[in-house]
């Protein structure tokens, strides 16, 4: 495999990891206003306070892989998306510090709740907006930020909010008990519908957006090997919907839900995202700055790509290993007694 392609796929992997991992913890921030009780809010935050930093590091990783392997794309994309990136960063700042300060505050708790919820929502919305913008082709640096706000990009912004919230719900179903679990399952079921609708709209709009993409999906026999993507998505969504329903029913009956039905929704939501992401990749490949540059044109010189290779091959597996170890140490439900430093 040639190196630029390897890094293109690595970049895709980094983005997907970011979306999945920070997705569920941003999702919990988005859901925050719907859990009114301070005790609920405590638990929601406690369920992610040990992992959010690692999750967000994938965003940094995506950024530097872009910088190191495709400098022209890094320069072009980040300066063209100046306004949403800055806004996203500021959102991430507020939600990030809320983790530290909320637990230490007595009188200002309310404010940290807001910082967490609004920060997460703004960051996620900006990400969705940027996705929509890029599907439509990269704007000029001189274009006004207001031009980025079209009905379509607003739609993708809200769609990503819904998607992250769904990931958050399924994570909570896994990590909480009783009332909170019930509530997360209920919201999750609604969000499955929202997300499936949004995916449909975005897929159609993307495919109709350009002739080339239309041809890629429906021209010739391509559809033959692409059909599993939409089909599997529908199957995953159906199973997800039913699992959450089972959890709800068992809780209502006063039983403890079967652990399979508690854990599987999260992985199903993950696979929904992965499938959607694969679909996007099919549409946009080989562009790295959509409408402007392909990944081959943007690639850094061979010396740089080779230099990073051992680092990637050795450290990415290691990182995945100790990240899993970290999650295992905190496995199980979030308990009510306070833990920590």
């Amino acid at each position, binding site marked *: 495999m040639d190196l630029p392609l390897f890094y293109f796929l690595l970049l895709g992997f980094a983005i997907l990891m970011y979306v999945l991992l920070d997705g569920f913890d941003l999702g919990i921030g988005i859901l925050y206003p719907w859990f009114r009780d301070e005790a609920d809010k405590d638990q929601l935050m406690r369920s992610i*306070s*040990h*992992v959010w*930093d*690692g999750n*967000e590091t994938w965003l*940094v*990783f995506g*950024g*530097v892989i872009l*910088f*190191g*392997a495709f*400098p022209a794309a*890094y*320069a072009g*994309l*980040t*300066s063209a998306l*100046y*306004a949403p*990136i800055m806004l996203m*960063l*500021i959102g*991430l*700042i*507020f939600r*990030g*510090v809320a983790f*530290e*300060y909320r637990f*230490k*505050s007595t009188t200002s708790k309310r404010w940290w709740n807001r910082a967490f919820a609004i920060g997460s929502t703004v960051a996620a919305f900006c990400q969705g907006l940027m996705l929509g913008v890029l599907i439509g082709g990269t704007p000029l*640096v*001189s274009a006004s*930020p207001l031009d980025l706000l079209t009905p379509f990009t607003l739609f993708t912004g809200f769609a990503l909010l819904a998607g992250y919230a769904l990931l958050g719900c399924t994570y909570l179903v896994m990590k909480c008990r009783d009332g909170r679990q019930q509530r997360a399952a209920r919201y999750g079921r609604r969000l499955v519908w929202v997300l499936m609708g949004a995916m449909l709209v975005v897929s159609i709009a993307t495919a109709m957006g350009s002739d080339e993409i239309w041809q890629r999906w429906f021209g010739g026999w391509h559809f033959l090997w692409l059909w599993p993507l939409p089909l599997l998505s529908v199957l995953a969504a159906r199973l997800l919907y039913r699992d959450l329903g089972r959890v709800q029913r068992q809780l209502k009956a006063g*039983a*403890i839900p*079967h*652990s399979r039905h508690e854990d599987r929704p999260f992985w199903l939501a993950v696979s929904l995202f992965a499938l959607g992401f694969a679909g996007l990749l099919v549409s946009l490949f080989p562009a790295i700055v959509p409408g402007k540059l392909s990944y081959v044109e943007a690639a*850094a*010189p061979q*010396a*740089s790509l080779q*230099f990073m290779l051992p*680092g*990637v091959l050795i*450290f990415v597996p290691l*990182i995945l290993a*100790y*990240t899993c170890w*970290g999650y295992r*140490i*905190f496995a*199980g*439900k979030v*308990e009510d007694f306070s*833990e*920590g*430093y």
Partner: protein
Amino acid sequence: MELDSALLSRLQFAFTVSFHIIFPSITIGLATLIAIWEGLWLKTRNPLYLQLAKFWIKPFAITFGMGVVSGIVLSYEFGTNFSKFSELTGAVLGPLMAYEVLTAFFLEAGFLGVMLFGWQRVSARLHFFATCTVAVGTWISAFWIIAANSWMQTPAGHAIVDGKFVVESWLEVIFNPSMPYRLVHMLLATMLTAGLVVLATSAWYLRRKEHIAFARKGLSFSLWWLLIFAPLQAFVGDLHGLNVKEHQPVKLAAMEGIWPAREQNVPLLLFAIPDPVQEKNHFEVAIPGMASLILTHDWHGELTGLQSVPKADRPNVPLVFFSFRVMVGLGVLMIMLALWGLWLRRRDALYQQPLFLWLCSLMAPTGVISVLAGWYVVEVGRQPWIVYGLVRTSEVVSPLPAERVALSLTLFVLTYSLLFGVYLYFFRKLIKKGPPPLEDLQHHLIGVEASGYALALTKTLQGNDTQTEGAK
């Protein structure tokens, strides 16, 4: 228009990176101290060490959080505001930063969760391992980012193809001429910064006659710490200066306030007001020949001055000149303080001398101030070059409309000012609350709070869950 957005981008970068470095300079040193205390506790079982570790981990956590959120901004700002710079140098700096993420950021983040929240979930030894990993992670992170910055100061190991930088030797890029000095000087600076914060807090408790045993331990420990690192820092700083003289003579001239193109017998300026218009200094207070002696080891040694290059190639002289004096002045003060401490210790008066304790508690921010001053010398002294001698800063700014940068800069100033206030408020609150009482720490060793307890508990609870399921 074009120029405005360039200036604003530079201001924004300077502001955000200055804000960021405040936190790493505390966390790198503090992580190291906490790891040492935890190790000492495991070895000696002296509960005061556990108390020190358990107390300082809280300020550490909030500082770390601030470091993370402000750092993420920087890693995107290269592209947003200096897009041409990232395009030109991406092949060199990008891989270095990729290694930073791969070898340091993930490591820090991955083990931080265990370090902060894992007390009850892993054994004491494994916890110690996690703390050490976080500390080592912060050093590794400093290694890579300093390598990147030093390459911009003293570029080496590259070729320029089609106007873009291409790497010929990674070893030369990473271990470029100024990198070893800058790395050691920076790491020592973080040790001093954290040590001073601990020293000041302990002295403050002693003055208020609170937490006496704890405060004595902290004061004594941090004074030894200072006594080792402060003189070492001056020594390394001197070597660093010799390196600057060799590779960035114009910067050195700005640091020392030397105007003539070549000058022999250069005096060491203790104070002066450099005047870039008339190209001379006012109100000089100087030791004759001393600068020549320090920098060339000869009273009559010759140094290059600012007039050796056209005005357009000179940095902002007063800023570099004064920043340098602030850093060195505070460095000398730290050495004197450490020596005074040693003298008082000899006379068994360390914990009583009110003037000394008062001075110690005033020293809290001096580490951070010297770090910032040092970076201003380095970065402003590099101007007008972004890659020294090769690329000018003004040429590589993103073609953004000025209003957009002005808006984001305003947002950052507002956000960061607010957060800095909040940070100080919570820091103070944690300090006022004081260390966890020793009796509580005894509890940490048994019952709900003991190492590994929570993990065992959740396992049993899960076991119960599965049993009830089985019964259904």
